[in-house]
């Protein structure tokens, strides 16, 4: 009886052992044939394509982008963020869900750093709704988030801490759900929304500090393109998104003061660099077009 009882798990385990052993052998063989190539880790899905790359990218959060932008002295224009009622419209492709999760995250951050607490709460709800389409429910449901938000309303530091904590939980969920490519798309969406807000405020105010902050944000285009390229086979819309951001990056690099700094291999100092409105025009149009495409 005991032998019979032991036989089943031992046979099952032996089979598993053999399958694991084959992986190890495969890895060794691959390692011997291609010493510099990266070996696939069997349990890593296509979705986590960046895991096996020699280089990965850690892109800034919407909160930090909004914080740096706020320091330029930019004000709040209530008509700039995306309509909160649009969330259901984006429950279509993974691309739409991901980029608009980023768009709403940027809007939340923009409201938060402008002390628009009621709007912040509404955008947090929009993030939660669209996050649920991406399987991120847990990140928003833990620790009575809504009640904590109400309790700390008008306490800047506590609210920033709360939203940062949601950000971290979201990042963990992306990791656990093998959705690193979704995270990159969300950051691309947040970056586009922050740029759009900065462009609109700059167009209205023509303020030099806002221009400098806008230029700082534009310097993120290259790492975002690289991160998207390392995930380009994950969603069908990614190549077109890369092309749109590359267009913005090319127009940015064509600005005479920028191209001159790049040619001389000099650090771009966005606070002292001289750029005319006309030189900014083309790039601003491309940013608006990309944002319009994302939220439609």
């Amino acid at each position, binding site marked *: 009886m*005991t032998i019979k009882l032991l036989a089943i798990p031992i046979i099952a385990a032996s089979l598993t052992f053999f399958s694991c052993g084959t992986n190890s052998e495969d890895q060794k063989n691959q390692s011997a044939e291609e010493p510099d190539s990266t070996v696939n880790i069997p349990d890593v899905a296509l979705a986590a394509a960046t895991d096996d790359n020699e280089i*990965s990218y850690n892109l*800034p959060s919407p909160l930090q982008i909004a914080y740096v932008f706020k320091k330029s002295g930019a004000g709040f224009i209530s008509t700039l963020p995306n309509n909160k009622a649009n969330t259901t419209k984006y429950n279509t492709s993974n691309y739409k869900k991901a980029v608009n999760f980023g768009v709403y995250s940027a809007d939340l951050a923009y409201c938060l750093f402008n002390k628009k607490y009621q709007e912040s709460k509404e955008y947090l709800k929009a993030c939660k709704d669209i996050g649920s389409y991406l399987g991120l429910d847990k990140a928003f449901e833990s620790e009575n988030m809504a009640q904590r938000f109400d309790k700390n309303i008008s306490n800047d530091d506590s609210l920033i801490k709360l939203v940062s*904590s949601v950000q*971290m939980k979201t990042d963990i969920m992306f990791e656990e759900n093998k959705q690193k490519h979704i995270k990159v798309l969300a950051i691309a969406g947040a970056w586009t929304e922050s740029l759009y807000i900065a462009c609109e405020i700059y167009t209205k105010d023509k303020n030099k500090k806002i221009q400098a902050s806008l230029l700082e944000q534009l310097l993120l285009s290259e790492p975002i393109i690289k991160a998207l390229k390392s995930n380009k086979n994950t969603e069908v819309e990614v190549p077109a998104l890369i092309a749109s951001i590359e267009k913005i990056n090319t127009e940015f690099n064509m600005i005479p003061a920028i191209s001159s700094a790049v040619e001389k291999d000099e650090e771009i100092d966005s606070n002292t660099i001289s750029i005319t409105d006309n030189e900014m025009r083309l790039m601003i149009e491309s940013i608006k077009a990309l944002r319009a495409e994302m939220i439609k």
Partner: protein
Amino acid sequence: MKTIIIPILTLTFIFILMSFQTGNILCNAKEMKEKASALLDPYKYDSSEMTKILYKTKESVKEVEVPLFIGEKYRFVFEMEALPKHVEVQIYNKDKNSKNRKLLFSSKESASDKKEFQFDVTRVRTVYVDYIVPQAEAGAYTGCAVFMLGYRLK
């Protein structure tokens, strides 16, 4: 009762053995990131990256490019406990293919048994975090390293 316990215990034992077979250590993103976040204070959480490390038959480098906003104050935290063999962390101002790059930080400066590190930086636009993965004696070992970035609110 005995009929259930014996197979369960046998399977548990076998799975424990299997986990040692290739040197794999379970990479728990939640646990590792929560541990790292405890070292961020007073900096605010910005972002994090869990890097899967595969030990090869010769030394290799896994790199994370980290764009920053110039003039902001940052804290880098590393959680390295899910690594079966010691991995050195180096932070540079240029990527691993560039000549004349400057080393800004090395975990070598910390005690060899330390599994968590932190490093503060300001006035840099991009840094490159390099994990120097030592060669493995035999077979493939895998593990994970977590890198977390915090920024300071003024």
